[in-house]
């Protein structure tokens, strides 16, 4: 049974993204959700399925705030930064099974004003092994663990900090075209190369932002989506992939291979497209290196060739694979990748503004989280 194009993104919504707010994550999440529902031309009471991120708001909050009379489906996809894209697969299954028609995905956080990202990791059950065996030695934050992955990649394949700088600088250039990006000043390669060391080889500008804000998406049954307010953006295929040794990167057989490598061929196969068909890609970018590694794991280049792939403008707006046209987690805001889904839909609708990729018809969005979990969705303009 193929799920190809059984569902479509019918609505997208965001709040303003900020670094500093006195608003709650719940309030931000509700605002983004209402924006997405209105964008689809639906009423909040039409929502009959909800996949919240799990922080900021739970399904019950939406029932309470929207007066939903018969919520038929709720779930969470606890995969950190892969959750948002993984929830597309979850919504697709629920809708195609006939459980519901309109699934709301909503993600809000006060990552800057509330509990900072580094501090919350120790309390999450998926990090129990790290908490017991690695944090006592000072391996506290994802930046440190991913840094060792990047170091290994550099040693094996000759990847350099200059390659990582290219990702940071390109992403910033895109953010400057986006009125809802929190980074508003240009970034040069030199700025990157002289920024302070966080955990080598990562410098400050290899790391994503801590942000306040929310984003939301409505996924609808395709035959209904066709009659809604906006052009439907069909989900050609979606999937999730979990790495070997997901709870301790240290024990992973291949440090330079992420979970998304396991689902990439499957999702491309189900979508019936090749890498050359992808007009635009929103790649989860908690750290520059994670972008580079995913490009390899997705099959856009061979393992070890990611450094060369990102150079020469290849990932810029007029390059062979434009990425993170909104500025990403590195320079727009860290909304855990829900902002990547929103941006992909904008691009495929032709609503990309100054950063619009001309004629973009097919694109992909990835998620990465919880030390290596991956998710991938390929979408098509309807």
């Amino acid at each position: 049974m193929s799920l190809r194009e059984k569902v479509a993104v019918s609505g997208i919504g965001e709040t303003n993204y900020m670094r500093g707010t006195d608003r709650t994550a719940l309030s931000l999440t509700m605002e983004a959700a209402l924006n997405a529902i209105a964008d689809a031309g639906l009423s909040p009471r039409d929502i009959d399925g909800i996949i919240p991120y799990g922080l900021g708001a739970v399904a019950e909050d939406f029932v309470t705030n929207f007066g939903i009379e018969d919520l038929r489906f709720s779930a969470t996809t606890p995969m950190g930064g892969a959750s948002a894209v993984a929830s597309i697969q979850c919504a697709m299954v629920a809708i195609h099974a006939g459980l519901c028609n309109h699934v709301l995905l909503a993600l809000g956080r006060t990552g800057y004003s509330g509990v900072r990202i580094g501090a919350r990791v120790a309390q999450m059950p998926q990090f129990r092994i790290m908490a017991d065996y690695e944090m006592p030695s000072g391996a506290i934050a994802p930046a440190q663990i991913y840094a060792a992955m990047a170091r290994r990649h550099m040693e094996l394949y000759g990847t350099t900090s200059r390659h990582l700088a290219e990702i940071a600088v390109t992403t910033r250039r895109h953010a400057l075209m986006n009125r809802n990006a929190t980074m508003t000043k240009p970034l040069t390669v030199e700025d990157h190369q002289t920024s302070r060391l966080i955990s080598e080889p990562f410098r400050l500008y290899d790391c994503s932002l801590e942000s306040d804000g929310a984003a939301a998406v409505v996924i609808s049954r395709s035959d209904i989506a066709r009659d809604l307010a906006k052009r439907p953006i069909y989900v050609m295929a979606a999937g999730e992939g979990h790495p070997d040794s997901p709870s301790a990167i240290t024990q992973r057989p291949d440090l330079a291979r992420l979970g998304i490598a396991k689902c990439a061929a499957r999702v491309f196969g189900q979508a019936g497209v090749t890498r050359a068909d992808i007009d635009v890609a929103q790649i989860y970018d908690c750290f520059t290196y994670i972008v580079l590694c995913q490009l390899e794991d997705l099959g856009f280049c061979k393992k070890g060739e990611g450094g060369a792939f990102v150079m020469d403008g290849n990932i810029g707006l007029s390059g062979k694979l434009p990425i993170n046209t909104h500025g990403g987690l590195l320079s727009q805001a860290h909304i855990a990748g829900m902002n990547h889904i929103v941006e992909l839909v904008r691009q495929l609708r032709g609503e990309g503004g100054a950063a619009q990729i001309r004629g973009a018809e097919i694109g992909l969005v990835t998620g990465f989280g919880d030390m290596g979990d991956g998710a991938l969705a390929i979408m098509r303009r309807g």
Partner: protein
Amino acid sequence: MPESTTKPLPEITADNKPYWDALSEGRLMLQRCAQCGKIRHYPRPVCDGCWSMKVEWVQASGLATVHSWTVTHHPFHQGFKTELPFTLVTVDLEEGVRLNAQTRGLDPAQLGIGQPVRIGFERVTDAITLPVIVSPV
């Protein structure tokens, strides 16, 4: 408050107590499946090779090689602030599993994949001793 108590400490459970007890005595012990013999780390209840829950503990040689590393400069945790910068190394133990720990007396600029190192021990509290990565000689 002394700094050692502000650092994160592991939760001792029935699954991992032999590991921590042995470290406190200056020995690195690993779980070996009592059915198929596969060595696993970090400590956990089930063998992923044969799904047996029978386990025995064997002493590691302490010999290892460098798999990867990072030098941390940013104060992610107040408990480690005065030690910055410090080097975390992931090592391949001779027994085939890995371990992540701070170095002692190793120059991070000289590190390379495959470099021989050895596991040392550093007492943190009465109950907890952590492994550290030291020179092989």
